[in-house]
C-alpha cells in the first residue's frame, strides 16, 4: 500500500457563502440558502456546478444531498456523507471525509456545505419542549444543566481550576474576534466593535462564561469545493492544499453524565498529534489559526492542545495584541469567527483559512502559507485540519 496520507493530494478550489443574517432573519428557506452557497462556491472556483458529484456535511444538516443533486440537475451523485456527532466538531472532519473520497477515487468534486436557518427550526441555546427526558439528559436536564453553554462551562471551570486561568484570557479571545470582524463587511458584527469595558460589564450566561464568551446563532449557508490537487491548479482560484486532517476524541470521552476520564479537555489531546503527523508541520510553522468558538474557554483549551502554548502560559500568551492580524504572534479568528462574523457552525472558519492561503482575507496575515482550523472544542468527535499554499507542499 502507498503511504496512507491526504497530504498534498486534494485542495479547496472554491469557497462560497450567502449573506449572513441575524438569527431568524434569513428571507429564504434553509434549503435555498444551501443551494445559493454551493453556487457561489462554484462561481468562486470557476467550476460548472454540474461537475459536482458528491456532498459531505456534519451535525445532521437537514439538507439532503440527493435533493440538492436533483435541484442542481447533477448528471450523477457518487458520494454522500454525513459526519456523526453534534455541534461544530465535524467541520474539519467533513472536509477530511470529502478529501478522502476524492483521493480514493470515489468522487471527483465534493461539496462540503452547512446551512442553518434556526428561526425555521429549534434553536441550540434553548431547551426543547417536552415533559420528560431519559438517558444522558435525565442525568442533567432536571438539574438545569441543559444548554451547550451549561454543558461546557463545567469542563472549562475544572480546566481553569487546574491551571489557574484568569478571566482576561477568555476576554482576549472575544476581543480578537470582534476586532477582526470590523474589517470584514460580511460579518454580522461589522460596525459593532467590542471594548474590554463592555466585555467586563456584560452579563453572566453561566459562570465562567459572560455573554461575549458565547457564540452567536445565525442564519445562512456556506460551501467549500474539494477536488484533486491537480484539478485545483487548473481552476480559477489559488488552491488551498490540504496538508493534514484528523478527527476523534480521547478514551471514553463520551462516558455519560460528565464521566470522561480526562474531563478537562477540549477533546483534542489525541487528535492534534495525528493532525501534525499527517501535515508534516509543527505548531511553530502555523501562520494563522481559526479556532471554533462555541465558548472562548474552549478556544483556549484547543490552542493549548494544538501546542501553541502550555496551559500554564495561557494567561501570558492570551493578550489581544498576540492574537491580531497582521503582526500578532498567533493571529486568531481573522474573519470574526463564530463570535462576530457568523455562526455558520464553523464552516466559515474553513473558508477563512482558505482565504488566508489565497491572500484574500479582510485581515490578511502577510505571506500566510500554513493555515490551521480547529472545529468544535469539547464535543466528540472533534476535528482539525491544516491548509497550505504551493510553497508549503
Amino acid at each position, binding site marked *: 500500500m502507498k503511504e496512507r496520507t491526504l497530504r498534498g493530494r486534494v485542495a479547496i478550489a472554491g469557497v462560497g457563502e450567502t449573506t449572513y443574517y441575524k438569527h431568524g432573519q434569513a428571507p429564504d428557506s434553509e434549503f435555498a440558502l444551501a443551494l445559493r452557497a454551493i453556487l457561489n462556491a462554484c462561481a468562486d472556483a470557476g467550476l460548472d456546478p454540474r461537475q459536482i458529484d458528491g456532498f459531505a456535511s456534519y451535525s445532521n444538516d437537514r439538507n439532503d444531498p440527493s435533493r440538492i443533486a436533483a435541484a442542481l440537475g447533477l448528471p450523477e451523485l457518487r458520494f454522500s456523507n454525513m459526519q456523526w456527532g453534534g455541534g461544530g466538531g465535524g467541520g474539519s472532519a467533513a472536509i477530511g471525509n470529502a478529501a478522502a473520497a476524492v483521493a480514493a477515487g470515489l468522487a471527483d468534486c465534493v461539496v462540503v456545505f452547512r446551512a442553518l436557518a434556526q428561526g425555521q427550526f429549534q434553536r441550540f*441555546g*434553548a*431547551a426543547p419542549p*417536552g*415533559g*420528560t*427526558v*431519559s*438517558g*444522558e*439528559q*435525565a*442525568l*442533567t*436536564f*432536571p*438539574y*438545569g*444543566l*441543559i*444548554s451547550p*453553554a*451549561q454543558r461546557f*462551562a*463545567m*469542563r472549562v*471551570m*475544572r480546566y481553569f*481550576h487546574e491551571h489557574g486561568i484568569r478571566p482576561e484570557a477568555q476576554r482576549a479571545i472575544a476581543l480578537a474576534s470582534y476586532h477582526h470582524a470590523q474589517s470584514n463587511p460580511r460579518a454580522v458584527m461589522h460596525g459593532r466593535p467590542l471594548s474590554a469595558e463592555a466585555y467586563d460589564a456584560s*452579563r*453572566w*450566561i*453561566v*459562570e*465562567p462564561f459572560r455573554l461575549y464568551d458565547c457564540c452567536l446563532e445565525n442564519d445562512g449557508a456556506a460551501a467549500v469545493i474539494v477536488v484533486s490537487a491537480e484539478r485545483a491548479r487548473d481552476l480559477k482560484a489559488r488552491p488551498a492544499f490540504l496538508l493534514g486532517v484528523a478527527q476523534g476524541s480521547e478514551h*471514553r470521552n463520551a*462516558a*455519560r*453524565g*460528565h*464521566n470522561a476520564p480526562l*474531563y478537562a479537555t477540549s477533546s483534542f489531546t489525541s487528535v492534534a498529534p495525528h493532525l501534525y503527523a499527517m501535515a508534516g508541520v509543527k505548531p511553530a510553522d502555523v501562520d494563522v489559526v481559526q479556532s471554533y468558538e462555541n465558548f472562548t474557554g474552549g478556544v483556549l483549551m484547543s490552542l493549548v492542545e494544538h501546542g501553541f502554548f502550555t496551559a500554564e502560559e495561557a494567561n501570558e500568551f492570551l493578550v489581544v495584541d498576540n492574537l491580531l492580524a497582521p503582526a500578532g504572534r498567533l493571529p486568531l479568528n481573522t474573519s470574526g469567527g463564530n463570535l462576530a462574523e457568523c455562526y455558520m457552525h464553523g464552516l466559515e472558519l474553513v473558508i477563512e483559512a482558505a482565504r488566508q492561503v489565497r491572500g484574500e482575507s479582510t485581515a490578511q496575515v502577510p505571506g500566510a502559507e500554513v493555515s490551521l482550523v480547529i472545529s468544535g472544542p469539547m464535543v466528540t468527535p472533534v476535528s482539525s485540519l491544516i491548509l497550505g499554499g504551493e510553497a508549503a507542499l
Partner: protein
Amino acid sequence: MSATAGSYLPPGLPAPVPEPDGLDAPYWAGTRRGELMVQRCPRCETWQWGPEWICHACLSPEVGWARVDGRGIIYSWERAWHPVHPALKEHGPYIVVLVELPHAGGIRMVGNLLGDPRQPVTIGAPVVAVFEPHAAATPPFTLVQWKVL
C-alpha cells in the same frame, strides 16, 4: 443522606424517566428508596457511571449494581444565570455541581448544590447527597442533590 421538602429548582423542568430499554432503571428505582445505585462489574470490580450494557474495562456483559455511600467532593461547578427553559424565567442564578465519588472509583454525578445560590463554591469541598423526592410527579421520581458538609 436525608430527604428534603420542596425542590431546589422551580417546578416545570423536564422530568427524568428510565430509558425504555431499562438500562438505568435500577438507578432511578434506587433514588426512590433513598439509595444511590451505580454499576459495578462483579468480574473485575470496575465502577461504571453512567450505566452501559457491558463493563468498559473487561467487556463482561454481567454488569452488576452496587449501593454507594452518598459522599463525594466537588470536582467542578457552574453558576447558571441565563434561563434556558421557561420554568427558570425570573428564577435567578442556581448552582450545578459535578461531584466525584473517590470511594467508588472516582465516578462523577451531576446535581445542584443546596443552599444560597450565590455562595462561593470550592472545588475539592466535601459534600453529601440529599434525596429530593418529586412524589406528585407522574411518574414520581427522586433527584439527587448535594450539600456542603
